[in-house]
C-alpha cells in the first residue's frame, strides 16, 4: 500500500506544462493585495502620484468639456455659424484720401445684395441707436438698441415670450413700438427675483430718448443651461434669496465669452428700422429734444448709414464663396472703397476649438506628468520591495515558480497599486472639480464624462504595467541559489 500521501504513485508524471491560468492570476492578485496591505502607508504614498494624475486628468477634461459646451451654446444663441456681419470699417491706408467719398453701409447695399447675392438667404439691416430708456421713474441704457426689420427675430434666434414682434406694417408706418429684452424690464419694473412675480411689460409706455414708445413684446430670458439650472434651484429654495441674486449676477456678469452672448441678447431692444430712421436719424425731427443728449443727429440732412448688416448664408461649407459674392456686390455699391468688413462666427468657432485644444493639451500635459511621476514612484517602490524580498523570490523559485510566474507576480502587484490609485483618483477628481469650481467659478458646470474616466483609468493601468516591467524583469532574473543565500 502507498503511504499517506500516495507515495509512489507519481511515477510517470509527464513533464508538466506551466501556464498562467486565470485562477493562478487570481491568487497572484490576492498576493499583490496582501503585499500592499502589509505596507499600507508606503502603498498609499505610492498611490498618491497616480491619484493626483488621474484626478487632474479627469478634472481638467471635465472643466474643458463644460467650457466647450457653454461656448457652443452661446454660439448657437447668437445665430450659429451661418451668420455673417457686415460692419463699417476705417478705410485701408492706400484709400484714405477717398474717405470723403465713402458712403458707408446703406439700404442701397441691402437691395443690391437681395438682388445680386443668391448665396445670401436672409438680410437684416441694423441701425444702432444710442438710447436712454425711462419709465416707471427709472432710467436704463440697454447695450443694444437697434432699428431692424422683423426678420432680425429669426436671424438672432430671438423668441418672443409676451406680446408680439413688430411686423412689416409697423415698420412701414414707422410706428413707435418696441420689443425689449428681459433686462430692460428688470431694470425699469423689477426682475421676478426681486418683485417675486413675473411682470409683463407689454402695453406699457417707455420713453426712448424722451420719445414715447409702446412696448408690444418682450423676449424670453436667455441663459446657459447651467445658469438656468442654478436659477431653477434658487427658485426651489425661496429662503435663500441671496443665492438667487448670485445666480442672476452670473447671468449678465459675463465672465466668459459665452455668458456675454446671453447677456447681450437680454440687453437688446428692437425698434422698427423705419421708426429709428424717421424719428432719430433723418435730421428732420426733434433736434431740440435730442440736442441735450448724446444722440444728436449727424446733421440737418440726416444720416442714412446703417451700423451693420446681418446676413445669413445658405451653408457654412459655402462660406468663402458667399463672402466673395457679398464682397463683390458691396465693392460695386461702394464704388470700390473698402469701408466695410466681415465678421463671421467662424473666427469664434475656431477660437473655441483652439482654446479647447490648448486647454486639453496643457491639462493633459500636467496630468501626464503627474502620472509619469506616479509611475516612477511605483517603480521605485517595486524595486525597494523586490530587494526586500529576494529571499522570498528564491523560495518561490525553489518550490517551482518559473521566471514567468515571478514576472507576473511583480507586474500584478504594480498594476494593483496603479488600479487602486486610479479608482481612488476617480473619486478624488470629483472633489478636485468642486475645489477648482469654488476657487474660480465659471458659467459652465464641469462635465465629467465616462470617456474621460475610462481614459484616465486606462492610463493608470498602463502606467502600472510600464512601471512594473523593469522591477519584474529584475526579480524574475534572480538566480534562485543566490536568492536563497541572500540575508
Amino acid at each position: 500500500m502507498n503511504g499517506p500521501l500516495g507515495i509512489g504513485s507519481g511515477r510517470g508524471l509527464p513533464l508538466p506544462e506551466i501556464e498562467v491560468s486565470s485562477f493562478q492570476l487570481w491568487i497572484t492578485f490576492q498576493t499583490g493585495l496582501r503585499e500592499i496591505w502589509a505596507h499600507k502607508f508606503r502603498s498609499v504614498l505610492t498611490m498618491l502620484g497616480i491619484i493626483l494624475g488621474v484626478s487632474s486628468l479627469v478634472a481638467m477634461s471635465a472643466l474643458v468639456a463644460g467650457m466647450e459646451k457653454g461656448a457652443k451654446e452661446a454660439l448657437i444663441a447668437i445665430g450659429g455659424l451661418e451668420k455673417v456681419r457686415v460692419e463699417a470699417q476705417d478705410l485701408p491706408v492706400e484709400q484714405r484720401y477717398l474717405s470723403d467719398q465713402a458712403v458707408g453701409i446703406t439700404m442701397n447695399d441691402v437691395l443690391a445684395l437681395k438682388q445680386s447675392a443668391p448665396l445670401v438667404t436672409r438680410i437684416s439691416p441694423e441701425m444702432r441707436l444710442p438710447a436712454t430708456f425711462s419709465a416707471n421713474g427709472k432710467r436704463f441704457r440697454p447695450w443694444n438698441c437697434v432699428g431692424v426689420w422683423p426678420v432680425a427675430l429669426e436671424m438672432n434666434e430671438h423668441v418672443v415670450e409676451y406680446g408680439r414682434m413688430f411686423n412689416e406694417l409697423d415698420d412701414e408706418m414707422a410706428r413707435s413700438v418696441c420689443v425689449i429684452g428681459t433686462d430692460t424690464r428688470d431694470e425699469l419694473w423689477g426682475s421676478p427675483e426681486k418683485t417675486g412675480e413675473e411682470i409683463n411689460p407689454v402695453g406699457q409706455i417707455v420713453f426712448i430718448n424722451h420719445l414715447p414708445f409702446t412696448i408690444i413684446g418682450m423676449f424670453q430670458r436667455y441663459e446657459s443651461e447651467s445658469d438656468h439650472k442654478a436659477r431653477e434651484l434658487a427658485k426651489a429654495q425661496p429662503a435663500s434669496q441671496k443665492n438667487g441674486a448670485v445666480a442672476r449676477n452670473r447671468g449678465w456678469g459675463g465672465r466668459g465669452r459665452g455668458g456675454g452672448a446671453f447677456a447681450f441678447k437680454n440687453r437688446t431692444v428692437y425698434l422698427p428700422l423705419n421708426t429709428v430712421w424717421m424719428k432719430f436719424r433723418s435730421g428732420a425731427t426733434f433736434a431740440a429734444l435730442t440736442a441735450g443728449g448724446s444722440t444728436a443727429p449727424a446733421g440737418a440732412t440726416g444720416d442714412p448709414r446703417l451700423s451693420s448688416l446681418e446676413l445669413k448664408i445658405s451653408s457654412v461649407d459655402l462660406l468663402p464663396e458667399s463672402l466673395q459674392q457679398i464682397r463683390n456686390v458691396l465693392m460695386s455699391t461702394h464704388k470700390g472703397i473698402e469701408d466695410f468688413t466681415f465678421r463671421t462666427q467662424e473666427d469664434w468657432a475656431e477660437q473655441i476649438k483652439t482654446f479647447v485644444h490648448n486647454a486639453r493639451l496643457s491639462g493633459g500635459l500636467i496630468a501626464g506628468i503627474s502620472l509619469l511621476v506616479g509611475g516612477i514612484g511605483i517603480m521605485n517602490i517595486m524595486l525597494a520591495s523586490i530587494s526586500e524580498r529576494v529571499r522570498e523570490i528564491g523560495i518561490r523559485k525553489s518550490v517551482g515558480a518559473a521566471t514567468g510566474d515571478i514576472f507576473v507576480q511583480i507586474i500584478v502587484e504594480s498594476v494593483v497599486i496603479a488600479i487602486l490609485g486610479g479608482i481612488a483618483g476617480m473619486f478624488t477628481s470629483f472633489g478636485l472639480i468642486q475645489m477648482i469650481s469654488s476657487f474660480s467659478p465659471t458659467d459652465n458646470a464641469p462635465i465629467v464624462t465616462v470617456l474621460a474616466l475610462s481614459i484616465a483609468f486606462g492610463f493608470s493601468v498602463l502606467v502600472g504595467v510600464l512601471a512594473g516591467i523593469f522591477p519584474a524583469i529584475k526579480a524574475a532574473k534572480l538566480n534562485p541559489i543566490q536568492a536563497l543565500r541572500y540575508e
Partner: protein
Amino acid sequence: MSLVELRNVSKIYRLGDEEIRALDDITLDIEAGEFISIIGPSGSGKSTLMHILGCLDSPSKGTIQLDGVMIHNASARELAAIRNRKIGFVFQFFNLLPKLTVMQNVELPMIYSGIPAKQRRERSMASLEAVGMANRAKHRPSQLSGGQQQRAAIARALVNNPRIVFADEPTGNLDSHTGEAILQLFRKLSNEGRTIVLVTHDPEIAAVTPRRIEIRDGKIAVKLDLALAGLDKRPPVQSQVSLAP
C-alpha cells in the same frame, strides 16, 4: 534504470583567468527509495552537487537523467516545472514565507502546479498530518519553534509528492534534541518509501543514512555501499514499498 543518473558531471566557474572546478567529473546513481547522505566540508562542492541534482543549477559538462528525463540541458522553465513536480527541498533556515500561514506555505508549490483550491487544502492538510503539524496549520512561521518550522518545511517539500527530497543541513539550525526528532522524521519518511538526499558536513548526522557519499574537492572521495556502512542490517528499502511503475 536508476532514479537519478549522473554521468561525468562537472561544474566549472571562471574567476578571471582562473578555472575553478566546483564539481569534477562526478558519476553517481541514486535509486528510487534510497536514503542517502552527501557529506563533505564546506567548499567541497556538496552544495553545488545538490543544486545541480535539485535542478536549481545546470552542469557545465556531463549528463543528468532524473526520473527518465534528461535535465542537463533543460530550459529554465522546464527546470522550474521539474522542481515543482519532482523535487522537494528542505533548507537549513527553513525558508518559510513569513507573511503566509503554515497552511499557505505548504500550498505554495501546488499554486505553481495549478491545483484547484479544494484539492490544495486537502493535500496540504494531509501533508501536515504526516509531519505531525496539522494543529498548527493557521499559525505563522514566527509563532512556531525551530523544529516546528522545519516540520512545516518538510510538509511543503512533500506536498507535491516529489520523486526525490533534498535536505540541506536540515538540523543545522536546531538543537540536538530537536535535530534528532527531525532526523527521526526523515527516517520514517524513508521507511514509507521516499527517496531522500541529506546534505551535511556532520558525519554523525550522515551516519543515520544507509548510504553515504563523501565529496572532497569536487570529487567523490569515498563511496560507501550498504555493506561497508554496516550501520543498518535491514534489507534495502526498495523491497519494503511498492515502487513499481
